[in-house]
């Protein structure tokens, strides 16, 4: 029998080791899966395409960064809420709404040049996401309705709303009735920071935000407040922290950031609003936040790791005709292993020799 004995202090070594163990276990599981499903392809070459090529090849590396940016931005917002025990699970919906509101501004000023246009679009995206997450905050505070369910239900609504918009007001007037918007004009497109790739300024914004969030959580009172609200709700009450404020801030920040990510996707790699805007980033960012242990700087790394699985997954899909859903399986497994390995931090695992 295996027995768990609580440690007096969290193991520092395990804080670093447990993610590595989780990664190793995921890689091993991937290896076993590949042995089963691949018949005459070498597992090692698939592994190379999956994990190494996106890091070596410049173009794939740029794509990795393109995918890491939205994950970083959304994951950052979610991690703040998760710290406080506010579970915004519908970032995907806020991302879609942000794409719609921000994109609509860009389309409204179609062919109007101006340096102010992009900031305005970004603002509209943030406000759209904030509004959408704000619904959940309002319902939680006013009616004690669980924010997990509200944000999720609203995600399905958002995707349907996008589809309605693309068949209605936002449809390209000269687009042969395709459910797509016009392609944004140059002033409404994010500047490219690496010539010849799709890498846009959103990545720099994401990194900047991570650093800001790190300072915010470390130095600002609000960081303290959300941390305590999450880990010791009773203590937070005695300290006089306002519960409602925590709910509002958590949801507005995570919603606003998800909205910004949605706009960046629309005005960046997509270049227009299409039904393909939702890319599951909102859900994957949950994994990103957990892998980073909800730490802003950790999110820089975990988003890169998850982006690697995206790009690698797409490459094996093209090169070896493997389904793209394999990426999702790996991401799910990684989170399972990661959560499981965390027990090593708080508990000592002892083999109990006595039979019971």
């Amino acid at each position, binding site marked *: 029998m295996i027995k*768990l*004995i*609580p440690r007096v202090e969290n193991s520092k070594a395990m804080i670093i080791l447990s993610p590595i163990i989780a990664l190793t276990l995921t890689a091993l599981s991937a290896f076993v899966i590949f042995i089963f499903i691949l018949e005459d392809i070498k597992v090692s070459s698939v592994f190379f395409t999956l994990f190494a090529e996106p890091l070596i090849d410049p173009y794939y590396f740029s794509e990795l960064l393109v995918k890491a940016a939205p994950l970083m931005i959304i994951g950052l917002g979610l991690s703040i809420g998760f710290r406080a025990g506010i*579970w915004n*699970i519908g970032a995907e919906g806020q991302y879609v709404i942000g794409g719609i509101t921000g994109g609509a501004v860009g389309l409204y000023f179609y062919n109007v040049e101006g340096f102010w246009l992009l900031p305005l679009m970004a603002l509209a995206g943030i406000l759209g996401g904030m509004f959408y997450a704000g619904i959940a905050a309002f*319902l939680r505070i006013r*009616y*004690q*309705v*669980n924010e*997990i*369910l*509200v944000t*999720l*239900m*609203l995600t*399905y*609504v958002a995707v*349907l*709303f996008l*589809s*309605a918009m693309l*068949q*209605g007001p936002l449809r390209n007037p000269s687009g042969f009735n395709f459910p797509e918007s016009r392609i944004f004009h140059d002033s409404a497109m994010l500047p490219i920071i690496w010539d010849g790739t799709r890498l846009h300024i959103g990545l720099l914004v994401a990194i900047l935000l991570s650093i800001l969030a790190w300072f915010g959580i470390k130095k600002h009172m609000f960081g303290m407040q959300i941390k305590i609200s999450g880990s010791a709700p009773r203590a937070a009450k005695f300290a006089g922290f306002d519960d409602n404020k925590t709910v509002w801030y958590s949801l507005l920040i995570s919603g606003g950031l998800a909205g910004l990510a949605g706009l960046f996707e629309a005005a960046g790699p997509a270049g227009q609003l299409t039904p393909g805007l939702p890319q599951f980033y909102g*859900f*994957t960012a*949950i*994994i990103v936040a*957990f892998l980073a242990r909800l730490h802003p700087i950790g999110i820089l790394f975990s988003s890169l790791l998850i982006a690697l699985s995206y790009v690698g997954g797409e490459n094996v899909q093209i090169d070896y005709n493997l*389904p793209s*859903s*394999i*990426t*999702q*399986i790996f*991401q*799910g*497994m990684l*989170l*399972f292993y990661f*959560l*499981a390995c*965390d*027990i090593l931090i*708080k*508990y000592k695992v002892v083999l109990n020799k006595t039979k019971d």
Partner: protein
Amino acid sequence: MNESLFINIIIGISIASVPLIFAAIGELLVERSGVLNLGVEGMMIVGALMGFVVQFHTGNSYLAVLAALFGGMAIASIFAFLTQYLLTNQVATGLALTLFGLGFSAFVGRGYTEETIQLITSIHIPVLSDIPFIGPLIFSFNPLVYVAFLMVYLVWWFLFKTKQGLILRAIGDNHDAAHAIGHNVVRYRVMAILFGGAMAGVGGAFLSLVQVPIWGEDMTAGRGWIALGLVVFASWQPFRIILGAILFGGITILQLHAQGFDIRISAQYLSMLPYLATIIILVSLRMRLKNKTNRTVPNCLGRIFHSTT
């Protein structure tokens, strides 16, 4: 109202609500034991796939339903192991389960998206089913519809009429006290989680074996999450699950009929109804309870249990 239209609407509502009844009644038992499993959507989609695959290869509906049941259970066992033995956060693990379930079923089911199967047909009892009006209204449903209602009754009976049910509820309300008087908290919870997985699996299979003869990777379309909402709506009382599920079934049918009648609203807005209804119903529940706290919430819901002894 036209008699046959009325009967058709009743049948339609029952078909639309049964997957929710299965998934929600399973989750209700899980939550009564103090565990919050957010993986319902993932377990349902795995059930839908397993049922479909077995039906496709064997044509045996009993085996198909069993496969869905065990498929849901198998994936729930991951959750049980992680949360009960490795003490992981239930919210995170449940979400991981949903993400994993969606990926897993999309991966395994990729070869089946073009296939169709034989649906499980409704029962027909000689004489009884032929009684006008009452026959089609009581004796001519799909067999799984009866099973769903039976499960609700059984869960109620288990929770409130058996000793084990009392222990399970006690564990959900205070696991430390239940442990102190010698009950095996982890064993009860693991059993509950497995039961929840089995029910979600069957609920998912109802979609692919009764509603439509095809399989698609997004066919659950949030029903697992709606089921979670139903448990809250039902205030953890089994029979209220039926009420809630019928409400949703009604809204779904309303939406389909409205699309049929060419009402001048975009299909997308009508499709939003079930999701918006979930939110509205949860809000209205709180309005009914006013400022009273909901006393039926299991006190230990979502809390991690670890005994040192």
